[in-house]
Structures are given as structure tokens and as C-alpha cells.
């Protein structure tokens, strides 16, 4: 599903990624770990074409991300879901509208949207908060709304950047359980985190970055 081939990323003299090579199979779940500044976010940003490698190649599915045209880029991004540490919900839109955003952006039929949104909110157990504004939710609920938004369009790849960074351990476990469920439904999941305890509690593969170099790629 994901192939990083000798990917190097430089910002001027600074090396953010240093000849990173790894691959993830479809429906595989993995953690991307490392200290702050190790290159986790940079790596994830490559996977949604927010960054281009200075050297090397990134493949996602059949897409060679270097060769995506401007027209292909939105089509590619519709196959990816992204969860942020701060869920970045739109404060003046309801939970429903926030979750529906990727469907509307992708031009889904209006009749399809309510069902899809309800299904996504059911998955995170928040369908009863359909009409609430983000300001009325707890941080855990907001994060789950962010996850619902990331999966509402049924992506093949789910990326999460420190998704439990602001949550207590109990909520973190719930969120991890959700990611595992998505993986069980065939979604490839890559989670960037620096929470070692969380990673150790899961049976999934670990990709460890240290100063831009991939120093571990296994369980």
C-alpha cells in the first residue's frame, strides 16, 4: 500500500528524512515513533503530497506521488484520511457538517451524505451529537469527530499524527481500539506518536525515526 524508496528530504542544509525506505501492506497497521523533530510529521506529509521528496520515491497504491498532476491530486487525497493531534474542527459548523466536509468536497450526492455521516459517527459512538457545535464537546469527543471525518469517505489509507496527544490514557485506548477496527475493515493505518506506552500495548509494527533516519522497522 505504501512504499518509501530511499526518500530524503532536505530543508536547506537540514536533513529531515535521510534515505528512508519501508513499505506497508494493505490493511496493515503500524506506528511511526520517534522524538519530537525526528521526522514523523514530515514523513506523513509526504503521504498526502504536502511535501515532495528531495530524493527518492513515494508510492501509495498505484499512485507515484511525484507524478501526480494537479487534477489527480484531489482524487488521490480522497483515498486518504488524516487525523490530527488537534482535530481542527470548524468551530462554526455542527458535528454533522464537520464530518460531511470530505463528502461535500468530493462532490458526493446530497442524498448519500446523511447516511455516510451517520455511519461514521456511529463508529465513534457520537451520532447523538449530530447537531452539536465543536465548542460544546469534550476534547475526547472532538478527537472522535475528527476520526469520523477522516473515515467518512472510506479511505484506503488512514494517517494519524499524534491522535492521542491531548487525551487521557483511557480515551487513548478507546481511540486505538477504533484504529484497530478500521484496520480490521481493510484500511491501512499509520499512526505517528511519541507515546511509547501506547505503542508497546499494541501488537503492530513499529517504524522508528531518529534524526530523519529509519532506525527500526519491525515489531
Amino acid at each position, binding site marked *: 500500500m505504501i512504499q518509501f524508496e530511499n526518500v530524503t528530504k532536505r530543508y536547506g542544509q537540514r536533513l529531515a528524512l535521510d534515505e528512508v525506505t519501508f513499505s506497508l501492506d494493505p490493511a496493515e497497521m503500524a506506528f511511526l515513533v520517534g522524538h519530537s523533530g525526528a521526522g514523523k510529521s514530515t514523513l506523513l506529509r509526504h503521504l498526502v503530497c504536502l*511535501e515532495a521528496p528531495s530524493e527518492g520515491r513515494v508510492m501509495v497504491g498505484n499512485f507515484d506521488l511525484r507524478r501526480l498532476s494537479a487534477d489527480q491530486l*484531489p482524487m488521490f487525497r480522497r483515498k486518504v484520511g488524516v487525523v490530527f493531534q488537534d482535530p481542527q474542527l470548524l468551530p462554526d459548523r455542527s458535528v454533522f457538517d464537520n464530518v460531511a466536509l470530505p463528502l461535500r468536497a468530493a462532490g458526493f450526492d446530497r442524498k448519500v451524505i446523511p447516511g455516510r455521516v451517520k455511519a461514521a459517527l456511529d463508529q465513534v459512538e457520537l451520532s447523538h451529537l449530530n447537531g452539536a457545535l465543536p465548542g460544546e464537546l469534550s476534547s475526547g469527543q472532538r478527537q472522535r469527530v475528527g476520526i469520523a471525518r477522516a473515515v467518512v469517505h472510506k479511505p484506503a489509507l488512514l494517517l494519524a499524527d499524534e491522535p492521542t496527544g491531548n487525551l487521557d490514557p483511557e480515551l487513548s485506548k478507546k481511540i486505538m481500539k477504533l484504529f484497530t477496527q478500521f484496520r480490521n475493515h481493510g484500511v491501512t493505518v499509520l499512526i505517528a506518536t511519541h507515546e511509547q506506552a501506547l505503542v508497546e500495548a499494541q501488537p503492530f509494527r513499529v517504524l522508528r525515526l531518529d534524526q530523519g533516519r529509519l532506525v527500526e522497522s519491525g515489531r
Partner: protein
Amino acid sequence: MSKQLHGGPIAHAEAIKEATRRLRHDPVRHSVGVLVMALMLALPGVAWVALRGLDVMLPVEITTPGLSVFVRQDISESDLTALADNLLMRDEVLTVEVVGRNQGLEALSQLAGLGDLVGAFESNPLPDVVRLAIDALPQSEAMQALSLALEGDPRVDFVRIDQGLSNEMRNALVLGQRLVLVLAFMVLAAIVLVVTGATRIEVTRARAELALVDLVGGTQRYARRPFVYMGLIQGAAGGVLAAGFVWFGAILVAAPLSRLITLYGESEAWVGATPLDLLLPVLAGTLLGALGARIAARVPSVAWT
């Protein structure tokens, strides 16, 4: 992908809904923007309508500078014709028109308020007049020389140099119309800039949302469309308001212009603001609003942090 729509009326309806939602979000700011646009659009519109009123007002008979040669009352008609023929042969004379004394009286009686006065005369007090259009400026030596020469003619009572007032005014009017066009062009350019600036502010405010739209696979067109509709709606609203100002402005100048027109003896009616005068600001506002917004609503890809 079969259940996805990438354009068409539904996508545009959604964009319009989103545009109106954004406009409602800050109604005072957007209303002020609409008002500014309306005033800018109305300014050249009202000036144009008023200038057209002046155009109607100007007499059409005297179009070039010339001489009015007032012939002595005891001159026979054959002498008058001979005088006119002689004058027409001169190089500097463009046209010769003989205005008979009866014709002059008739014209005088048609001027507002003078009909009764003319009727009080027992006989026609007016002389025959030979009106010459001259290919020279009123102040020129050629004009002065011809005037002096004619004053020495025994058939002539006196000579008046017509300053070509109508012509000068018409030239001033053409200049005014050009200035209004220049003003209109500047105003239209300013409207595009105003809308561009306002839309850019709106885009900047929506940066976080647009970053998300970009990240979840929204196209540039999808992200841009509501902003273009915002500009279009504001431009159309400004245009409608401007049409109202033009209509109202035309009503305000109607009475004094009509009085002026009557004083100048013109019978051609001034129609005020025409439907085209009212339609133009609406069309201009709508198009320029959409254009300004279209220029500004280039939505950049925004990286997540």
C-alpha cells in the same frame, strides 16, 4: 465514485448556499462593501444621465461659429437672395441660411412665454437674417475681417458674430462624456480591486477550513466557487442599489433639466433614466464582483502543522 457529483447545478446551488452563509456571517461588513460598490457604480451612471439631459438641451441649429447678418428692412427679396448667393461663393463660408423675418417671428412666438408678446405686435419688427457658418474661430482674423466687410455693405444693418456657443458647449459635452467614461473605467477598476481585496481577506480568514478542504480532496474549483459567488452576489446587490441611485438621481435632476430645456426652446423630451441606464450598473456590478472574486480566490494548498 458513481454517487459523486463534480459540477452541475447542484454543486453551484451548494456553492451559492455556502456563499450566502458566509455573507450572513458578517452582514455589516458585507453591507458596507455593497454600499461602497453601489455608490461607485452610481457616480458615472448619474453623471451620464445628466449629461444626456444637457445634450438634449443644446440647440441643434447653431452647430458651428458663424455670423448672423441682419439685413435692412427696406431691402427687397431679390437683393437678399443676391447677398446670400454672393456670400456662399466666399471660401471661408461653409453654409448660408436665410431666415426670413416671418420665419424668425414664428420661431420667437414658439419660445416659452413669448407667444403673447409676439401677438401684441401690430407688424413684424424682425429683419431678415442671413446666417453664415464660417470655417474659422470666432476670434480669428478671418471672422473679424468678414464681419467688418459685411458691416460696410449698404444692404446690411448690422452683423453679429455667433460664438458657436452650442458648438462649444457640445464640445464641452463630448469632453464631459469622455471624462465620465474615464471615471467609469477607473471606478470599474476600483470595484474589481475592492472586491479582490475583500475576497482575499475572506479567503485568509477561511484558511484553516480551506486547508482541510484541500487535504480531504476538494478541488480548487470547489474551494473557490463560494468565494466567486460571494463576489457575484455582492456585485449584483451593489449594482441593483446603484440602479436605484441612478433612478433617484435622474428624478432629482429631472425638474431643473426640464426647465432648462424649455428655456432653450428645445421640444425634444428628456426621458430621464432609461432601462439600459438601470440595467448597466447591475450587469457591471455582477460581472466585476465575480471577476474580482475570481482573481482573489486562488486558494493555496496549506500544509498541516
